[in-house]
């Protein structure tokens, strides 16, 4: 890391840590959402950006993680610190099943992506018929007392959730930075660039692809737990829907697949863009249903056409922090 990058990173860290001191409730909620998407995008990026395995079904892990922790809390009063372990175990079990079946049977590329969608959709409909979690009617956790912090049950004011997400996002960033420099990072990128060549060099591609899937699903399980306790309501139609998977992967793709900053930058750009479009259209009085998403789609189209590698690689060169 060069000096300029270190300074920029430090400034960003201080600004984010100080944000709840002066930001309004609205800005804080937007910032929390950005960090949530940045963290989850980072988790997806481990699988796709590092190891080259395209998952279009990450909503599966968000949903299973959320329902595991929320179910324990709702039925038995067991808090998220215990629930998060159940979430991680269940999500890695799903990840292991998908990874094992796909990699053993030699499924890759488009077929692998469709398999991940199929698992997510299958589970969504399953949860629609699961009474323990309320079925399609949803699962509701008692809304938090906004003025007191109950860390044991992860209930508290918005700033608490913001800091929790900040710690998670920073932790994921640090973990991914370390991984990229480790043996695993080099193996993954070798597999991503050319799997047959990696295998010929003696890399156990099955084992390392599995490692990427397991790590990615475990990380995404934690964002599911956060989701449950932050939003307090879960519906299979929303949490497992393919649009949630798409929401997760848009950030890293727009920001830059396989880069460390891409998921963070992409999440920030897309969230601010979506809110900005809403504000501008409201100011103009153009409030037709759907118009916001049409603009959003047009912007995505333009970005993907003119910045095929995402925003970050280009921006990094401009800032002089590219390697």
């Amino acid at each position, binding site marked *: 890391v060069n000096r300029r990058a270190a300074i920029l990173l430090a400034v960003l860290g201080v600004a984010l840590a100080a944000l709840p001191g002066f930001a309004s409730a609205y800005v804080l909620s937007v910032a929390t959402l950005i960090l949530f998407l940045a963290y989850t995008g980072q988790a997806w990026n481990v699988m*796709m950006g590092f190891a080259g395995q*395209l998952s279009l079904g990450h909503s599966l892990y968000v949903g299973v993680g959320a329902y595991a922790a929320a179910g324990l809390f709702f039925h038995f009063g067991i808090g998220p610190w215990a629930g998060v372990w159940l979430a991680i175990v269940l999500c890695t079990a799903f990840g292991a099943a998908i990874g094992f079946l796909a990699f053993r049977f030699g499924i890759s590329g488009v*077929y692998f*992506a469709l398999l991940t*969608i*199929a698992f997510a959709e299958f589970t969504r409909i399953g949860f629609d018929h699961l009474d323990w979690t309320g079925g399609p009617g949803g699962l509701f956790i008692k809304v938090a007392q906004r003025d007191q912090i109950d860390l044991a049950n992860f209930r508290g004011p918005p700033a608490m959730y913001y800091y929790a997400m900040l710690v998670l996002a920073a932790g994921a960033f640090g973990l991914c930075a370390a991984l990229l420099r480790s043996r695993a990072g080099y193996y993954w990128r070798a597999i991503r660039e050319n799997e047959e060549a990696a295998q010929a060099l003696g890399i156990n591609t099955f084992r390392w692809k599995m490692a990427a899937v397991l790590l990615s699903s475990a990380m995404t399980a934690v964002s599911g737990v956060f989701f449950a306790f932050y939003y307090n309501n879960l519906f299979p139609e929303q949490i497992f829907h393919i649009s949630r998977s798409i929401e997760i992967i848009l950030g890293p*793709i727009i920001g830059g697949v396989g880069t460390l900053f891409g998921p963070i930058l992409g999440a920030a750009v897309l969230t601010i863009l979506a809110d900005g479009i809403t504000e501008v259209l409201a100011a103009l009085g153009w409030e037709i249903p*759907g118009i916001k998403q049409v603009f959003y789609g047009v912007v995505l189209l333009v970005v993907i056409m003119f910045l095929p590698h995402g925003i970050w690689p280009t921006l990094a060169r401009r800032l002089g922090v590219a390697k």
Partner: protein
Amino acid sequence: MPIDLVANVVISGVLTGLVYGLMALGLSVIFGVVRVVNFAHGEMMTIAMYATVALFASPLKLDPFVALLPVAAVFFVFGYLLQASLINPFITRPEHSQFMLVLAIAIIMVNGLLMIFGPDARNVQVDYQLESFALGPILVDKARLYAAFTALAVSAGLFAFFKFARIGKAIRACADNYLGARVVGLDVKRYYAFTFGLGSACVAVAGCMMILLVDVTPALGPAYTLLAFVIVIVGGLGSMGGALLGGVLIGVSEALAGLFITPSAKSMFSFGLLILVLLFRPQGLLGRKS
């Protein structure tokens, strides 16, 4: 469960499945040649359904079986231009990049429909939707039967086109060997656009037929995209016969799941079937091993 009820449900599943099959055929043809997965396929289907609704409600009062001609023609041109302008620069890019591009197009389509038509369900009402043929204890809906015949006829036309027509053979050459096709002087870019147009025309006809069977809302687009994927993977991505077979299988399994379990669980069986096929015959039932 009385046997004639089951037979009725299976027959209606087969007929609906043929329309599904035509929709999936469009996706399969595009993937088989251009090697791009059209993630906006279901959205195009809903656009065709709305176009049929609009033509039916217009002063011309076009019957869906007449409307399919102009709708298919417009879709052919639209698909041709889409491939020639936006998608063609992406055919050498990685899959996630193609996915993003087509997804952005799909988002614009769904919400464009929402802006124009609103969120309420639309349909067409013609006399023959309420009539049926009786074969002993088995009742066959007229509209469903006509729709299935149309789907079969269009599919047969497409098979013949690829088998016998000069352009069809040229397109197959492009799909078989990109470099070889260029060496013998084929304008691959133009044939790719032509193929995308053909796939779009297939989904247009399927949409015109489907509006006779179900109501349409903008939100139906992504659901049809997923359905088309399931069908082509089950049948074999890139295999034309496989798309029809997959359509019929999914149509019947949906109908039976709706009868024996609960209609809301019907797509669970489709996705379960998809997972099994991916694991044990990843090239699909009629697909060739690559």
